[in-house]
């Protein structure tokens, strides 16, 4: 798959992005890493890319504690812009150190395909297998 990897609008952490790029590439995917602090417009633009660089999946990562809010903004902006690609998000999404089921629900309702809010990369790998196997799974909270 061609995967678009992105930080969230207010999040400047990059070790998560460096790690995820390697992780996804080692699984055989091609990764376009947009880097940190990605405004919604830049993300939407990259999703709309056509030709050989056209993404099949968007992976959003956030660890600064604003992830639920920024992720919601991002996925709403993408869906509003008519982006139909699968979008998943993960990392440390809140400031409390534990997943927040209500916030996770809001992300799913807004059009996220999966939420890995405990940062579980094993679960992401399973999700990727599923996608590669052809099926776009029902929206799920992978916990």
């Amino acid at each position, binding site marked *: 798959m061609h995967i678009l990897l992105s930080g969230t609008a*207010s999040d400047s952490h990059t070790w998560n*992005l460096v790690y995820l790029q390697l992780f996804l590439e080692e699984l055989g995917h091609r990764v376009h890493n947009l*880097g940190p602090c990605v405004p919604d417009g830049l993300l939407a633009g990259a999703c709309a890319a056509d030709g050989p660089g056209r993404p099949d999946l968007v992976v959003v990562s956030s660890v600064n*504690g604003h992830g639920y809010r920024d992720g919601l903004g991002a996925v709403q902006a993408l869906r509003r812009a008519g982006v139909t690609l699968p979008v998943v998000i993960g990392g*440390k999404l809140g400031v*409390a*150190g534990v997943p927040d089921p209500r916030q996770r629900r809001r992300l799913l309702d807004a059009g996220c395909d999966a939420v890995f809010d405990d940062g579980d990369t094993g679960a992401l790998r399973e999700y990727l297998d599923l996608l590669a196997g052809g099926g776009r799974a029902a929206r799920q909270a992978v916990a």
Partner: protein
Amino acid sequence: MSGGATLLAPSAAREPAAPDTSFGGFVARAAASGQLVVQPRMGFGDPHRMRDGLRRTRDAVATTVGTLTIDSYTRVGDQDAARAALREGTPLNGYPIATHSGEVTRALLEGVRGPAFPVQVRHGSSRPEGIVRALAAAGLDATEGGPVSYCLPYGRTPLAESVENWARCCELLAELVPAPRVPHLESFGGCMLGQLCPPGLLVALSLLEGLFFVRHGIRSVSLSYAQQTDPAQDEEAVRALRRLAAEFLPAGVDRHVVLYTYMGVFPRTARGATRLLEASARLAVRAGAQRLIVKTAAEAHRIPTVQENVRALETAAATAALCGRPTDPPGPADGEVYREARAFVEAVLDLAEDPGRALLTAFARGVLDVPYCLHPDNAGRSRSFVDADGRLRWSEVGAMPVAPYRDAPPGRALTADGLLVALGSVARRHDGPRARP
């Protein structure tokens, strides 16, 4: 410059020395009386909680200064998001100083901040004008940052723009905090991405940012260094920073060295986190840093509570007090770290007379090149590794004026697991059952 700590009453540095109410003056007085100043990284969106945090920092059994750590929305200049989050009641990862009114910030500081308890604003913004204006309006005069250290690790602002912003904001701070008050600026250059950057480059960046601040009108600065992988190498680095500061900063500029407890992936257990914190306090005293910024046992997991911050401050202060005063080893501090740092500093200062211009050219040519940094204005050709003895070294240097380590492992491609192992080495060592203190 002397650090060290003795078991004096925590109030020893708090005597109202009437004329000098500055941040730098407070740290200098504490150092003169043998006290290490300890400081939290603390920020909450709610002003009441923020005030409570400052109050309890002040009242901790330690010589403390307070911190307003600013939230990520304010850092990236998205005041609309900060305002909306406050309205929705979404918790922020810091205090939105440019969103709460000046009145709110002054009220939260009222009766807490004073000559005996200075407060610093820590923010991580490459576009700091709004923050500088807000802190000055609230009566504050001490902050942190730098044209490089608040740009490369903090987003996608072009380096040239950050250099311009920071030059203007140093001058703005000097103007908004006129004499006899003394504005204070700390470089974050000794941290950069928090981990896997060999000490020589961190020391050089901190010094170069200090020179940049002075060029733009700041007369009281602190230079930083973040604890890395090896206590002996770290001690060498802090001493190198002190020596370079004495050699390169103009006489008459007030200065001190601030150490940061480890800024990379933190131990997950309370025991491991405490061991690492204690090691940083001992390092600060041994190497002669005057101030220490602590991390809490919650670091690996979430934003720490006020209580966790107070515990970290008191743990660090108690550990420092048990160390006694340091005695600098005889002879100049001219080990490997000093030589590397000096090579960077000289190479950069040779590029242009103006420090901002010199820094820009240095990054454009890869003379300075921060390992693993994704920022487009960083060359990205350097690589580092932790050697068999635990020291952080260069394996690839790109165009930098230093040599790769002779025993560097053969250039294997970086893997995801390999990266996690490297990032987690400090945490593992301190979390483990037989953790080395």
